[in-house]
């Protein structure tokens, strides 16, 4: 989801504002003469086959806000759409109009919903609909509605046979498309299509070892198939990940994956890991390596592991937190200082730890970022 307005169910990239003056000029010009035919296109309000239906203009009220300067085509199509909706018309022409409306605004979920109602009411050919939605998604792959529509059609057909290939095609254009991955995971889980996915993930990681979506998919597949509790699987994954780390030690995804899969068992419990990682230190000084060591030392402390000298773990952890905060990962200074204080508080000698060189904290209730208001 790189277009962030999508999170609010809209697609908005490269929007520029025109001057209000410009808009008025255009409207004035159009009002001078009525031209029902513009380059062959006939407005719905002028089409004979639609003459029985009175368009319903949008009711924005007398003093509109956030008023969009719709094109004439847009207004015409949606005025007619509102009329169909009002009459609850279930016809071929209604279906055709939804296609036009979608073309003008593929984020209009009301239109999509209506189209689905019509698909069922008119018993439309769902194979044709699959072709249609395939084309729309290719054109607008970062829209919520198009993917949801495809999912509905797949469900109705109960046929996922094209899905993995289709998603792979979309991912070949944008390997991190969030909707695509969501659709893929849904298909796999719903229809139990796990075969070959680990191989697919490895292909993607070959192409871009930094593709975090692929690393996530790796976790997804293994979680839902073999799981990580089998030690031969865990071994395989650790070795695979270390191999990728060696290729590109500044790739955060690989380090996060390593951490993620070892969380449950405990980083310090995995045999030989500390050695393998400290060995890497000789050839690279990636802040992720250092952070991983902090995690490992912290795990050793947490589990009170007898394999490690607790005091050494404690000292080293603090040393690395300081190193990260002051030199290697200063953007996260506040965080590493917090980790340091937490470690000292939990495992330290017992002296109270102050949060900073700032003045001593006021009464504890006011440390909360929220508060009870005084009575009005």
């Amino acid at each position, binding site marked *: 989801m*790189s277009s*962030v*307005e999508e*999170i609010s*169910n*809209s697609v*908005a*990239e*490269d929007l*520029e*504002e*025109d001057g*209000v003056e410009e*808009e008025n000029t255009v409207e004035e010009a159009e009002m001078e003469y009525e031209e029902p035919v513009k380059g062959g296109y006939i407005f719905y309000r002028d089409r004979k086959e639609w003459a029985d239906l009175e368009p319903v203009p*949008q*009711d924005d*009220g007398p003093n*509109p*806000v*956030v*008023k*969009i*300067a719709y094109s004439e085509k847009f207004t015409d199509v949606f005025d007619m759409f509102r009329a169909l*909706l*009002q009459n609850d018309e279930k016809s071929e022409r209604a279906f055709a109009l939804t296609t036009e409306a979608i073309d003008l*605004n*593929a*984020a*209009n*979920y*009301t239109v999509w919903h209506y189209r689905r109602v019509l698909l069922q009411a008119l018993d439309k050919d769902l194979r044709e609909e699959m072709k249609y939605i395939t084309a729309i998604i290719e054109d607008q792959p970062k829209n919520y509605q198009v993917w949801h529509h495809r999912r509905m059609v797949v469900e109705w057909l109960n046929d996922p046979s094209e899905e993995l290939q289709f998603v792979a095609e979309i991912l070949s254009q944008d390997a991190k498309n*969030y909707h695509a991955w969501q659709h893929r*995971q849904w298909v796999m889980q719903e229809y139990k299509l796990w075969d070959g996915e680990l191989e697919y993930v490895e292909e993607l990681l070959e192409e871009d070892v*930094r*593709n*975090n979506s692929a690393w*996530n998919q790796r976790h997804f597949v293994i979680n839902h198939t073999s799981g990580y509790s089998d030690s031969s699987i865990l071994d395989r994954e650790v070795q695979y990940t270390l191999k990728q780390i060696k290729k*590109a030690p*500044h790739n955060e*995804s690989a380090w*996060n994956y390593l951490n*993620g899969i070892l969380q449950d068992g405990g980083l310090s419990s995995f045999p030989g890991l500390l050695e393998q990682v400290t060995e890497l230190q000789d050839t690279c000084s*990636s802040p992720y390596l250092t952070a991983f060591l902090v995690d490992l030392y912290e795990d050793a402390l947490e589990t009170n592991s007898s394999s490690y000298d607790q005091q050494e773990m404690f000292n080293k952890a603090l040393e690395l937190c300081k190193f990260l905060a002051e030199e290697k*990962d*200063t*953007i*996260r200074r*506040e*965080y590493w200082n917090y980790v340091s204080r937490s470690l*000292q508080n939990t495992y330290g000698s017992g002296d109270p*730890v102050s*949060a900073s060189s*700032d003045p001593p*904290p*006021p009464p504890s209730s006011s*440390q909360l*970022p*929220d*508060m009870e*208001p005084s009575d009005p």
Partner: protein
Amino acid sequence: MEEASPPLRCFSESHSSELFSDDGVQTVTSREQRKVERSIQEVYSVYQQIHTSSQPTLLREQHYHYLKKGLRHLSDAYECLDASRPWLCYWILHSLELLEEPVPAAVASDVCQFLARCQSPTGGFSGGPCQHAHLAPTYAAVNALCILGTEEAYKVINREKLLDFLYSVKQPDGSFVMHVGGEVDVRSAYCAASVASLTNIITPTLFDGTHNWILSCQNWEGGLGGVPGLEAHGGYTFCGTAALVILGKEHMLDLKTLLRWVTSRQMRFEGGFQGRCNKLVDGCYSFWQAGLLPLLHRALFKEGDSTLSVSSWMFERKALQEYILLCCQNPGGGLLDKPGKSRDFYHTCYCLSGLSIAQHFGNKDLHNELILGRDENRLLNVFIFLPSRHQLIQFTTSAQRRSPKRLNISTGCLFQFRQNLHQVQWTSH
């Protein structure tokens, strides 16, 4: 003659050591990242040449005019947001609120009347008149009305029908679809929790199972995905975490791994935040990601954590302000994703929201301000207001009005909400 400004982090000698290391292995990810870093470097060097002694400036006037105009008129480029018009109201009104620019009473009334036309007869709000109700415009409309805070605004909301709508999109597994016949993801839980809490219509059963469903969205990375199994993503992580806070269940998250994940999302070179690991910086994540830090601070405090900072959220506040002020402002007004992108009201809202969070730590009693650049850059402090009596929780709007009169109106109407609550029948849903 302006006094010498404190040095900016991005101009320090060592800053170039923060550039992305590709280890000699180039991939799409590393190429894209380096492209962005180069464009940011360009912005910095231009800035250094032009502004040798001046401080970073928030272009208040320009943003104000962009917002004021947009609240009335939008070009046909906004046809793609025709099903999100309450969002446009909210993004613009919240931006104006952050800039502490008042909304004239007539305009406020017009917004109320428009949003009333977006309210569905079956409850909830839609993207525009005659469209179907949807949780996202419902969230936006309720927030916009709360910002206006007038009696007219509060009266727009049909609370009984809103509750009906929420039940109509509730799923057996605890999740919510965004609209009838629509998709599920964690945004819906946040939208539902937010509006239900603000309007005080939470029933004993409304959020049955919801917190468990949200928790299942936390993954191996520590962040949350849109649905269980998906990659951790800033927007969804904010929605899930904030929803849990509203539901009082945030302690059930693995807060430590979440904290590690979100703090790792701040870009060492750019200073802004990325939405996902190994993706690009974007101004809007100044809110979705940085906004998690106050939530986590509070959650950890409630758990008895005595080692929390008393002066700062756990991210680099100065660096984020630098990114927003130097890289995310359109000279003609409005804010944006990153240099080279176009301005829009969504980015304007969330860049300003992130700027406010970076500027203000704490609350009314304990407040640490860190304003980068001129003092006039200061925005309204958007703090999390959790009054048990009033049951008002706003994460993106400020409940604390500067004008006491407005405060009385808002609390008065909230009392009205509470009184009306007793009139809502708790039927067995």
